[in-house]
Structures are given as structure tokens and as C-alpha cells.
């Protein structure tokens, strides 16, 4: 297990390096630069280029990035908060924690609601409850986040002013409700559908018949024998879910006006703030890689047939 995790961490470093390279060359391929504006004179731009080392050949610039990152230096913002350290912007202004809090809450909601709903639907297969859940989850995976977020806003903040329109810095519980629901709804529904399918599959397996023949209680049959087996495909899907929820918060952060990392990430691309693009990409990628490692370990815990060491990270 330990050597496996070590191997995965080494692989993660390599992956991050590749991500850095791709991001770096792609962002330099976008026409324009951070200092372009109506007011900027060519001379001023040239000075700024010199100041931040952007006049050097691309390959040298890339090497500087890598060396600085290895030292833990993420550079300074070129435009959005000119001169401020990127590390401060991301970690000390609450952006990272806000996005993570939002993402993890949504993830928890999706898992805690989606999986039980799937079990209930499978257990009551063919009933009106199953039918209702099927319609709801199908609608849920079809409705885009921005539509749902807007609908929630219009209903619960405008028509019935129960919840705040602007969630802002997520200081109280009420401001979490709508963003978390918007962010997790798609995944909740998808997990419910997936759990239902794999649960139905598990319920029809021979080992369930064996357990019934032993005299195992129905509740235990579902919760012990069927659920754990049906979780295997669900966990496989959780990797991409985590990635999607954590990086996909842009729409929700914009709609509910939450100053988080997702929103900042998109703005940094618009502004071509190279250092911030690099930093957010690398941090979010590291997070996704880490989550995938967690998923793989969870996989091993649920299914003893999986051996982690034989797989290359």
C-alpha cells in the first residue's frame, strides 16, 4: 500500500509537469497579452514584459516557471491584482477555502442523497416511487446548472424571500443552501441512476440468492450484500464527479456571486493573467489527482479482488 501511494505521488508530479507544459504553451498561443488595453503604449508594454521576464524565449520562461514552482514560488499577479503574490490571492483571500467548502458540501450531498435514493428506487423497483425517482433523476441530469441555479434564485430568493440572493463569502448556513444544491443536483441524480442500475444488477446475482437461502434478513440483504457490490461501479464514477464538482463551480459561483476559485480561474483566463492561470490550473489539477488517488484506495477497500500494487499509477 505504502509503495503504491509513493508511486502514485511520483506519477502525480510527472502529470502535473505535463499539465504545466500544456497550459503554458496553450496560454501563450492565445493572441494578446496581460498588458494589452486601449491606454497601454507599446513602450509601457515592453517595459512590463521586461519586468516580468516575458521577453525571454518561451522555453526559458517555462523553465523559470518549473524551477519557481519547485521552490514553492507561484509568482505575482500580472494584471488582476498587479504585484500581489499569487499564493496570497489564492490561499489568503479565502478563495480556495470557499471553493473547497462549496465543492465538498456538494459532493457530500450528492453521495449522501444520490446513493440512498438509488437504493430506494431499486428496492421498490416498478412502484410509483421508483417511477417518480426515475423521472426526477432523468430531468435532473438533463437540466443545466445555470438553469437550475437561476430557477432556485427566482423562487427562493425573489418570489419567496427565504434565502439570500447573494451568497457572497458563505458566512452563514443559509447562504450555502442554493449554491450547494445547484452544484450537486446533476451529480445527485446521476449517482441515484447509477446506484439503482448497479443495485438491481447486484440483487439478481447468485450470491444474493445464497444469502436468502441462508435466512438473511431483507434489510441486511440489501444493505450488506447488495449495496457493497453495487458501490463498485459507483465509486468508479466518483473520481470524475469530484473533479467536476470542484472545478466546475464557475457557473454557480457567478450566479450566486461567490468570490471563489472557480470564478477567479475563468476571469484569469479572460485577462490573460499568466501566473494566475498557471497557479489555478496546477492547484486544481493536483486536487483532482489527489481525489483520484482517494477513489482508487476506496475502491480497494470496497472490493478485495482489486490489488493496487499490480496497477501502474
Amino acid at each position, binding site marked *: 500500500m505504502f509503495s503504491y501511494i509513493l508511486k502514485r505521488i511520483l506519477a502525480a508530479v510527472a502529470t502535473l509537469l505535463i499539465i504545466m507544459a500544456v497550459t503554458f504553451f496553450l496560454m501563450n498561443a492565445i493572441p494578446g497579452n496581460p498588458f494589452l488595453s486601449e491606454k497601454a503604449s507599446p513602450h509601457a508594454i515592453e517595459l512590463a514584459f521586461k519586468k516580468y521576464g516575458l521577453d525571454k524565449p518561451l522555453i526559458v520562461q517555462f523553465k523559470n516557471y518549473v524551477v519557481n514552482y519547485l521552490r514553492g514560488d507561484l509568482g505575482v499577479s500580472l494584471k488582476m491584482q498587479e504585484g500581489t503574490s499569487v499564493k496570497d490571492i489564492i490561499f489568503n483571500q479565502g478563495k480556495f477555502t470557499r471553493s473547497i467548502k462549496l465543492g465538498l458540501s456538494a459532493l457530500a450531498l450528492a453521495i449522501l442523497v444520490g446513493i440512498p435514493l438509488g437504493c430506494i428506487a431499486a428496492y421498490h423497483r416498478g412502484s410509483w416511487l421508483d417511477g417518480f425517482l426515475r423521472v426526477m433523476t432523468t430531468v435532473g441530469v438533463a437540466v443545466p446548472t445555470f438553469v437550475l441555479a437561476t430557477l432556485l434564485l427566482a423562487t427562493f430568493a425573489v418570489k419567496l424571500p427565504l434565502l439570500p440572493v447573494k451568497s457572497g463569502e458563505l458566512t452563514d448556513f443559509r447562504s450555502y443552501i442554493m449554491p450547494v444544491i445547484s452544484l450537486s443536483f446533476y451529480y445527485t441524480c446521476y449517482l441515484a441512476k447509477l446506484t439503482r442500475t448497479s443495485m438491481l444488477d447486484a440483487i439478481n*446475482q*447468485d*450470491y444474493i*440468492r*445464497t*444469502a*436468502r*437461502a*441462508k*435466512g*438473511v*434478513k431483507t434489510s*441486511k440483504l440489501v444493505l*450488506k*450484500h447488495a449495496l*457493497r*457490490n453495487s458501490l463498485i461501479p459507483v465509486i468508479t464514477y466518483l473520481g470524475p464527479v469530484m473533479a467536476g464538482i470542484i472545478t466546475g463551480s464557475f457557473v454557480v459561483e457567478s450566479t450566486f456571486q461567490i468570490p471563489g476559485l472557480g470564478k477567479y480561474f475563468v476571469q484569469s483566463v479572460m485577462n490573460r493573467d499568466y501566473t494566475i492561470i498557471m497557479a489555478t490550473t496546477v492547484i486544481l489539477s493536483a486536487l483532482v489527482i489527489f481525489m483520484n488517488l482517494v477513489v482508487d484506495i476506496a475502491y480497494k477497500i*470496497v*472490493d*478485495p*479482488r482489486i490489488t493496487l500494487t499490480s496497477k501502474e499509477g
Partner: protein
Amino acid sequence: MAENDRLIEVKDLQVSFFTPAGEVKAVDGISYSLGYNEVMGVVGESGSGKSVEAYSIIGLLQNPGRVVGGSITFEGEDLLAYTPEQMRQFRGNKVSMIFQNPMTCLNPVYTIGNQLMEALTCHDSSISAQDARKRAIEMLELVGINNAEKRIDQYPHEFSGGMRQRAMIAMALICKPKLLIADEPTTALDVTIQAQILELMKKLQQEEQTSIIFITHNLGVVAEICDRVSVMYAGKIVEQGKVNDIFYNPLHPYTKGLLASMPRLDSDGHERLIPIEGTPIDLLNPPKGCNFAPRCKDCRKICLRQKPPFADYGDGHTSACWLHFMEDDGEEASGK
């Protein structure tokens, strides 16, 4: 057989599956009884209803299957009147079952020990974890699994097919049931392992005094292990009797056909096997007469019109065929 010698008595059992196409009479009025410490083989081709009959004893019939008539009495108690909770207590405790495919019958994500101990704890919640574990190890040793102390903590995928079937048998017998239903337990195993498993079942049957209903389509297996045999065809028992009677004096044309289609060790190797022509009937539209009539070489007019009654040849040997009532009217009139 005297009334109190009977462990289980099935009377006129009818099981139907209600499909969109109509009612399928999978088991259509079968009766038999099984004594203590007795092994009965149920033989028949696929779809003859032999597994369905067994599932209705243990209450494992799945929708859309339902018992629609008859009775099943186990030690004087009516099983069909049991509540679901009573049935659950009964399953695995008084009657347990082993299945055809040991590769898929054990839950892959729990250890062998966990699954064995569960069979104990779901009927006796007062048993301590240590005692359950001790008992599970004993059972594994009993079914011939070496190094049971260590293997109890392994997962099914670390066991071979034969080992898994041994573990299944251990699990089925852990509560000391009075009746074991074995649904083709050797079919999925290769021949040498088949022989080992049969040996083991024979040994355990004698040691534990368990009655067995042994479902199979393999007559060789029947000869090996059973005291009595029921031959099923299209949802009905066509012939019943002691093993020797069935093998040396088969009466029903279907039983004769089955025996003729089986290779024999004492043949000179040039005899042809004689297949039973035709295919089983469509149970959605069963014929008015004898179910076997469309495939029977000796089919008479009456066979197509009316179901044959049982002729009793004594010592529990019965056969349902019109031919028995034709050759010698005076004697066969004694048939029911």
C-alpha cells in the same frame, strides 16, 4: 412410510409463473414424501420444473412465480402457511440449499468466514463472535479444507471452484439442517472434483444424518448418492421409486429413454446411444393428454386425450403411463 417417519411431504404441489404471455405451469401437481436420513434424486431435463419445486419448499420463488395449489408439510407444519419472518427463520436453519455455480454463489466482497458465520448469527443472535468463528473453522475442516484457520479469512476469489463448493456445503450445514436441497451442485465442476464433492456429500450425509433432495440431470450422480429417485418431465413426476428399481426396471417410456441415451461402461463401445426425439412441450399450452405423448414411441390414442394415472408397482415404485393399464388389465387395475 409411517406418518411420523416423514420429514417432508409434498402433496399435489402446483407452481405457476404468471407471464405476460399467460400462465406457465412449471410444476403441475407433484406429490412425494421424504423420510429422515433419506436421499432423493430429482431427475429431469432443463425446464422440467425440478428446481422450481425445490425453490417453493425453501420459499425462494421469485416473482412472477407462485405456489397456486397443494401443500408442503415439514415435520407436520404447513410451510405454505408460514409468514415471511417464519420462512426466513426456517431457511438455512431447518432446510438449506446449495447451488449449481459455486463461482458466483459466494459474495465476492466478504470473507468466507464472514459468510459462514452469518449463516449462524442470522438464526442465533446470542452466539458470540468467537464461538461462531470456532464453529465456522470446524465446518471448513469437516468439508476437507486444509489450513482452515487461515483460509477462513480469505475471500472467495482466493478459493478454487471445488473449494468454493466445499465452503458452500459447510455454510449450508453449519446450522445442522434436517434437509439439504442440492440444486445441481456438481454440474459446474470438472469430473474429478465432481467425484470428490459427491464423496464428501455422501460422507457428511451419513455423519450428520441429513436428508437430501438432490436435483440433477446426471443419472450417474443419482446412482452414486441417492436412495430414491423421482423422474420429472414437463412439471410432473412421471416415475418414482428406489434407485435400483429405476435403473434396472424402468417403467415409464421417458425413464427408459433417459437410460438408453446414457453411455454405459459395460457396453462394447459399438452401441449407439438412442436420443429421445423431439423437444419438451410448451408449458404455456400443455397438451390435454400425457405431457410426454408427443415424443413417446409407444403413444396410443388415449395418451393424447387424457392424463395418465399412477400405477403402483409396490415398494414405492410408481409410474404414470397408460401403457401400464393396457397390457394386463387384471393386475394393473390395482394402480391408483
